[in-house]
């Protein structure tokens, strides 16, 4: 059987043109997907049933017992942390928010360690953006800033920019200029028409300089700014101003370096300034396939995109205080539920030391690094493979993933709904 137009549940590109060949309820071939997506569709080695850590051993337990364990753990906690959410679909994220609200916990998603800083910047100055198709059809200038799509979003270039056909471009490959700005000469830099190499930590200064140059204030700019010559800055500013439609895609090169969200704020302010001259947009290269969805769901349900603390009943938001890394590193939580992410692989060690000290339940199809810190892990269906649900692409376009396999695994939202029901029952009595 071949499933057409399947949706790839790997990165924020959320490519929806994947063909998956299934034989005997196994994926045997994947067409159109990149290497990352293909491997995900072909994934094996799933955990077969829930497991419980008993001293220095792992024991198999039933779903009922595992779900009960999780509900009890969350109900008795004084400051539970519900973290992850980017690797699951919106329906599950909604249950997660209701849970956090019910037990007065903290709910945070992986954007706090990817584009959380971008959100903080947007909250200061807004966000001139667009859907990916607008860029594909119009952009004659694309800038990748601190992002490396060849490694992180392999089809971004072919579906939306460098190699994509565009309605308003006669010969898209020739007529579209690509500028790459980075501290490393990445593979993406190799396919650029212009590469701007910045000294590490210098993005903010370069962005400020570009803003001034776009306004015509070139005199005060030093001869070099963070390793970039004034001549190159002026050339880049002119390329931007003379473009008919420019698009900036930025990545973690801006969010994870000094200044964090101030880098993105500066980039957005540059783009707002450029809109006085021509049309320009800027967008984040979101990582997980549904990390943007977790921001959307959290926002319509709580008012905030991530890092929401319900300890006092009302929603309190303060990234840096109510975000997972800070809470774990400061040992401020006493239980953790992990869904759709693997913090043990992606958080600094100090956070893991606290995870080792508190009860942890994880929902994940596979054994991963976080498994080692779990008291209970509950295997679930993989959204986009054996479960369907809503995911939001990096540009905010919501797409329903398709189910390509049928397995007996419960989906995240089914497991969470059962936990939530137990918790509601306990609170009533």
């Amino acid at each position: 059987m071949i499933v057409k137009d399947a949706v790839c549940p790997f990165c924020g590109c959320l490519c929806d043109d994947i063909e998956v060949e299934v034989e005997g309820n196994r994926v045997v071939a994947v067409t159109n997907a990149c290497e990352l997506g293909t491997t995900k569709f072909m994934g094996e080695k799933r955990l077969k049933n829930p497991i419980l850590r008993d001293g220095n051993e792992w024991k198999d337990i039933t779903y009922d017992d595992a779900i009960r364990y999780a509900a009890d753990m969350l109900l008795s906690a004084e400051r539970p942390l519900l973290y992850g959410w980017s690797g699951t679909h919106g329906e599950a994220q909604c249950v997660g928010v209701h849970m956090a609200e019910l037990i007065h916990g903290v709910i945070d998603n992986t954007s706090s360690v990817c584009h959380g800083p971008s959100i903080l910047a947007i909250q200061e100055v807004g966000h001139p953006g667009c859907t990916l198709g607008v860029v594909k059809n119009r952009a004659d200038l694309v800038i990748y800033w601190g992002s490396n799509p060849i490694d992180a979003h392999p089809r971004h270039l072919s579906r939306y920019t460098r190699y994509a056909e565009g309605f308003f471009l006669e010969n898209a490959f020739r007529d579209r200029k690509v500028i790459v700005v980075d501290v490393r000469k990445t593979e993406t830099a190799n396919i650029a028409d212009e590469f701007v190499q910045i000294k590490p930590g210098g993005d903010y200064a370069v962005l400020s300089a570009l803003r001034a140059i776009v306004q015509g204030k070139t005199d005060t700019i030093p001869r070099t700014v963070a390793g970039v010559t004034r001549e190159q800055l002026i050339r880049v500013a002119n390329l931007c101003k003379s473009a008919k439609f420019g698009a900036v895609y930025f990545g973690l090169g801006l969010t994870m370096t000094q200044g964090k969200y101030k880098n993105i704020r500066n980039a957005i302010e540059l783009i707002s300034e450029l809109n006085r001259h021509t049309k320009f947009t800027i967008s984040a290269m979101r990582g997980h396939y549904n990390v943007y969805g977790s921001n959307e769901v959290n926002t319509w349900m709580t008012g905030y995109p991530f890092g929401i603390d319900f300890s006092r009943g009302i929603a309190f938001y303060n990234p840096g205080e109510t975000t997972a890394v800070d809470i774990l590193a400061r040992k401020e939580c006493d239980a953790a539920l992990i869904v759709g992410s693997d913090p043990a692989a992606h958080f600094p060690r100090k956070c893991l030391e606290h995870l080792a000290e508190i009860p942890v339940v994880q929902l994940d199809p596979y054994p991963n690094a976080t498994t080692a810190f779990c008291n209970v892990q509950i295997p679930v269906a993989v959204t986009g493979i054996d479960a369907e649900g809503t995911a939001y692409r990096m540009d905010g376009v919501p797409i329903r993933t398709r189910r390509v396999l049928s397995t007996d695994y419960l989906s995240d939202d089914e497991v969470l709904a059962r936990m939530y029901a137990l918790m509601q029952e306990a609170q009533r009595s």
Partner: protein
Amino acid sequence: MTELLVKNACVIDPLSGINGEVMDLAIRNGKIVEEVSDAAEVVDAHRMLTMPGGVDSHTHICGTKVNFGRYMSPEDMRAGRTPRRGAMHATSGYSVPTTYGNSYRYSVMGYTTLLEGAMAPLEARHTHEEFTYTPLQDTMANTLFDGNWGIMEAIRDGDTKRVAAIIAWTLKAVKGFAIKLTNPGGTEAWQWGKNVSCIRDPVPYFEVTPAEIIRSVVEANELLHLPHSVHLHCNNLGTPGNYTCTLGSMGLIPDLNKKRQTLYATHVQYHAYGGSGWKDFCSKSEPIANFVNMRPQIVMDMGQVMFGRTTTMTADGPMEFNLYRLHHDKWSNHDVELETGSGIIPVVYRRKNLVNSIMWAIGLELALLTKSPWQCLLTTDNPNGAPFVKYPEIIALLMSKRYRDAEFATIHPDTESRVPLPAIERELDWHEIAVMTRAGQTRALGIQDLGKGHLAPGADADVAIYPFKIDEVDPSAEYQRVIDGFSQTEYTIKRGRVVARRGECLVHGSNATFWVAPKVPENYDMGKDPDFIEKFDRYYTVRMRNYPVQDEYLTRSRCIETEAEL
């Protein structure tokens, strides 16, 4: 079988011709019936004002841009936070509350049906997801066609039937309710950073004018026999002197429908400006209202501005950019491929600001100068002019000259020479308010036959009971009582259940979403049209098969099938 009897209700139900009659309302299984058994639960209304549930025919509550308004405004969120309590979930926000915040606050004011004013088809799924979390109102979505490539190409080819066919396919695919045109042509031009100046200015590349878009889409709307008319946000919103453009747009509209208007012009306050710039900015509510008074084919809503902080959000991207250049605060913009766009900025309307004061006056003037309340409905274009929680104050302003004068004394002193408001004596009565807040909306939306907006047997039992008796309140003098009365119902009943009582929402509820599915002949089915399919595959970034909104997104689906004349 569940039965409810509302006794001693002082009913104003304009669509049923009832005006202040004390009567009982019998309800069975969510519908109004002739009578119920003795076993029915009884609610005694004690002769309090009872009306069909409120209907908001133009509000922004769900979907991509609304959520982005929340996303970018943590400072707005902390202004209105409540914890989980009883059946109510936690809420946050003032001008763009969370979905639960919207739903509870509307319900407490007696509103039971809401129309989201602008939904981009590509992102429709998002709107429907948020509808699911708006549990206490029935919902429907205006669907944006202002910059639709397929439609502009069909118009250029002079093929109105193809325009209708594309609209039919899209509405059905995205489960939309009606056609919305926001700054027609302007949103496409904005994807190049440009705009159209008025209705005769051609759209870059497509070479069709806003006038042609409006005319063709209005005709297509009638070919499809849609319940609602075209819902138009005119070109040139917010610019001094734009009233001529508004009159020009309205002048394009023939009278094509016997049951309802042919054009719904939204938030007309923003389109009734005189002057050649901000220096001589003034009200042109009179020519607009006079024009509408002579044209039964046009219905408008106020788009009233109230003073204070709010967030503006619209599909009109270029207008938001201009606002950003005035305020230099946060600015978000979101263009949608092949379809439309949107923009968002926060604003503060100040009494001490002359332009803001004039805007405030214009909305009221439109309502007071339009003779028939059926032709000028009460809105703030929530949250653009003000958050909807200001509706009770607007009602009081319309009912009390004394209140208007008291407020007028607090605004910019130069306003007087720029607006006709101080000379207007008219005070609206309870019946007119009922028309402007439910009956008029219902007729304009064309949902009367679906059992909305009235209380005759067979109707959905959506009822609002306000905690005062109309014969004991003099709205002209006691305007504070009017404000308080409309701010919080004694009972809000939705589909036969009491959902809100004295400010508390009592049940979780689940809404129904209304959408249209026009039936078109095989040769007009765009799902099978090779040219349509090819363009879709080449220029959209979502596969055509993944575009339609699946049934899973509508918890309670109310599909309206129509027979298209193609």
